[in-house]
């Protein structure tokens, strides 16, 4: 089988060798075993389910919460000439959705968003297929966010059962042992063959620098960009900051092409920026966590965290986008003591407030009393109660669980409604606590005076490998002796006449 797989890899991707873990996971999948794969970011998880889709008959269904990543992958596959691939998600308009749903059997690889899988009609269509593999991508969502915002993920076990238990492949880039157990459990206690690979990339060095205020942060950042002069990603927790710092960099370093990227941009624009970065037209990207998944750029040399994420898992994933070519790369965290306010604030924003929940329930109660038992649409709720859509979906899931909502009808019972309010309060409280613990771990890492590599991966793997080059600031390494090799960035200083001539080869 190994040679078959290797030939297919060559044929479909043009690679001679598998990256870490791919072959082992593929062998398990090809023998129709349930498989859990934990592969560090940048090792090409998608090969593990794309190859079976190309090589065998039957459909591969991929559930992914990352809609834009889904879109990107479909586009990239189509660009490569694999046309029998489609994505079903809320980006599609009605006609296209129907077109895809009606012709499911004509696709080898089908990406589906978890919320689409809640649709009975789609499920009934899927049941008519020969599903060779059911993939749960970003499987940690079941645990990390699933309890709250990815409520749809919790229903995947049921979906798998309804689809008559096809082989399941759960994939993730980061998962602590607890999360791994959680995944297995929440997918219906499947017996899974586990393939866990270490996440500590040996060619990445870690540096943390405290600054007094934003001005010092900007100056430090600019100095660093001048020093390294290579493809760089800078992470921010806010869209506005990503935009304004991008502008600052452009003004201070006009020779280094820089742009911003975040989830608030139009899909079309996001793809353009991503491609410019891949094509080498851009050297620096200022972005939120929305950037990076599925961006397979080998020579990213520097990851700066202008703001830190709320947990080490996200941090490891973001840093993992550096140095995929194996060459030495650098992670730099810039923080000031005031920064810790931001994540605490974000955590609170993510969770519904008890007062909004009470307000919502009062509103629903009044509707029921007035004889309107239809569940109102989110847009209607929003007119009365300030509540986010993810929060609403979370509450809806909980209300269904408590039989307050049944088949889009509200059902009133004084006791169940009262119980519901109490339990929600506790659930929200627990969730908040959990998130604050995660944040605390991130914070401890920043303030540690022992080897950062050891502390960062402590919760994820038993042993941590030594660095191949520089290790971290606490081990006495610096960037003073970093050898600057400026890369040439494609400049489009030429006027439109030249540009048009170049484009059309005149």
């Amino acid at each position, binding site marked *: 089988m190994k040679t078959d797989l290797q030939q297919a890899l060559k044929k479909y991707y043009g690679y001679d060798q598998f990256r870490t873990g791919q072959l082992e996971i593929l062998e398990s999948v090809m023998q129709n075993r349930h498989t859990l794969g934990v592969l560090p970011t940048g090792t090409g998880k998608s090969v593990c389910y794309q190859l079976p889709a190309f090589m065998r008959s039957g459909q591969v269904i991929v559930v992914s919460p990352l809609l834009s990543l889904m879109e990107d992958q479909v586009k990239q596959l189509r660009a490569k000439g694999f046309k029998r691939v489609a994505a079903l998600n809320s980006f599609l308009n*009605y006609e296209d959705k*129907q077109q895809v749903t009606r012709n499911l059997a004509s696709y080898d690889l089908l990406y589906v968003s978890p919320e689409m899988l809640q649709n*009975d009609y789609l499920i009934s269509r899927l049941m008519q297929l020969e599903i060779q593999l059911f993939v749960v991508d970003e499987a940690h969502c079941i645990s990390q966010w699933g309890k709250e915002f990815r409520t749809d993920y919790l229903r995947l076990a049921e979906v798998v059962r309804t689809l008559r238990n096809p082989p399941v492949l759960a994939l993730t880039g980061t998962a602590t042992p607890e999360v791994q157990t959680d995944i297995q459990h929440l997918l219906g206690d499947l017996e899974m063959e586990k393939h866990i690979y270490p996440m500590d990339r040996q060619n990445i060095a870690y540096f943390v620098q405290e600054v007094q205020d934003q001005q010092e942060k900007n100056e430090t950042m600019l100095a660093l960009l001048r020093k390294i002069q290579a493809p760089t990603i800078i992470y921010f927790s806010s869209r506005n900051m990503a935009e304004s710092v991008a*502008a600052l960099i452009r003004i201070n370093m006009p020779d280094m092409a820089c742009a911003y990227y975040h989830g608030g941009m139009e899909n*079309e624009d996001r793809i353009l*920026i991503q491609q410019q970065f891949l094509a080498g037209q851009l050297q620096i990207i200022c972005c939120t966590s929305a950037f990076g998944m599925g961006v397979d750029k080998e020579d990213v040399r520097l990851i700066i965290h202008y703001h830190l994420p709320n947990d080490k898992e996200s941090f490891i994933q973001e840093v993992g986008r550096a140095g995929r070519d194996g060459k030495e790369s650098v992670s730099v965290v810039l923080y000031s003591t005031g920064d810790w306010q931001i994540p605490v604030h974000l955590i609170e924003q993510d969770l519904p407030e008890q007062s909004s929940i009470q307000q919502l329930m009062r509103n629903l109660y009044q509707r029921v009393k007035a004889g309107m038992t239809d569940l109102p649409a989110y847009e209607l709720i929003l007119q009365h109660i300030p509540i986010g859509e993810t929060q609403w979906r979370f509450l809806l899931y909980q209300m269904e669980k408590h039989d307050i909502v049944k088949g889009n009808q509200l059902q009133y019972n004084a006791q169940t409604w009262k119980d519901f309010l109490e339990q929600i309060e506790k659930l929200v409280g627990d969730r908040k606590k959990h998130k604050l613990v995660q944040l605390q771990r991130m914070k401890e890492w920043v303030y540690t005076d022992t080897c950062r590599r050891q502390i960062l991966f402590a919760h994820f793997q038993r042993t941590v490998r030594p660095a191949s080059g520089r290790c971290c600031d606490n081990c006495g390494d610096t960037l003073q002796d970093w050898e600057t090799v400026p890369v040439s960035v494609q400049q489009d200083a030429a006027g*439109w006449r030249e540009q*048009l001539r170049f*484009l*059309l080869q005149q």
Partner: protein
Amino acid sequence: MLLASIILHAVQPIRNERSTASIYHLLQGKRSAQTLQDAHMYGLTNLFGIYPKLSRELFDQLAQDLLENKIQVTETPIPYFDGMAYQSQTDTFLYRLLLLLQMLSNQANGEKHYIPVTDQAQVQYWVKQLYRQKQLQLGHWRSCLYEELYGLLEKLPEMQAGLFVDRISGYQHIGLTAAQLAVKYNLQVVDVPLYQTSTIHYFLDQVRANKSLFPYLGTLVEQPKQQSHTITSTAHKTRMMLERGLTLDQIAAARGLTENTIKDHIVEMTWLEGRRLASRFIGEADAAVIMDCAEKTGTNKLKQIHATLNGKYDYFQIRMALALRNEQEVET
């Protein structure tokens, strides 16, 4: 700022008679009798539909600031527009052109793998057809398109020509986003689409006036469709009330009409406008079930569909589903 200048220009004739919201509808290209009438009456037909993606929020804020003299803007000359003539063709022409240029540029370098600049299936289909038919003459197409474009761009202001060319994606070169163009040309982001639209209107106008000079660009122009249906004003009233969140019986009561009449309005609008209203009354999955049934049994008879589906859906739901199906047939 161009948008500000356009608003100030449009306000002059309209002032005192119509609200600023009517300018928004004009720029955005709302197909209502009132907006069309405004455009003609106040001599603003050239601005009709030149900014379909204009955000209402942004417009309201800007219009308010301008009229209360809170901000001073330097008057920007308004470039060529002919919205009434070209707004319905602008998008198709632009994306056909961009995708065609991307295809030709990559093809010239033997590159087959690239992400198309637009997702629009119809545009992709059009370019694919052209590729199939002209496979052997692509080199010729490339140089002729180049000549035609070059000639047209030469006559435009340098900035507008630059804005257009920098947006093109091709071989190993990805076009710039509106935000990037704004930085490069020192413009406000909101003005970028306006200049691009102006460029396309200019192209379309030149191509129409001198067909023999632009045979290649000419093939990109979509044959104008038949006059699109416009909804009746009574149905329109129903929609406004629906959008305010009123239920069917509330609307019927408020307007002194029967509930069935209101349902007729909704079916009519769904047929003309698509899913926008429909989702409140029928889910996609349900609609699909009904459409499948209609297709399988080969009938549009409500009674028969109702019976075949064991009475699971009422007549209104079935009519909605069929209206959605009609929409598809009309469009494709």
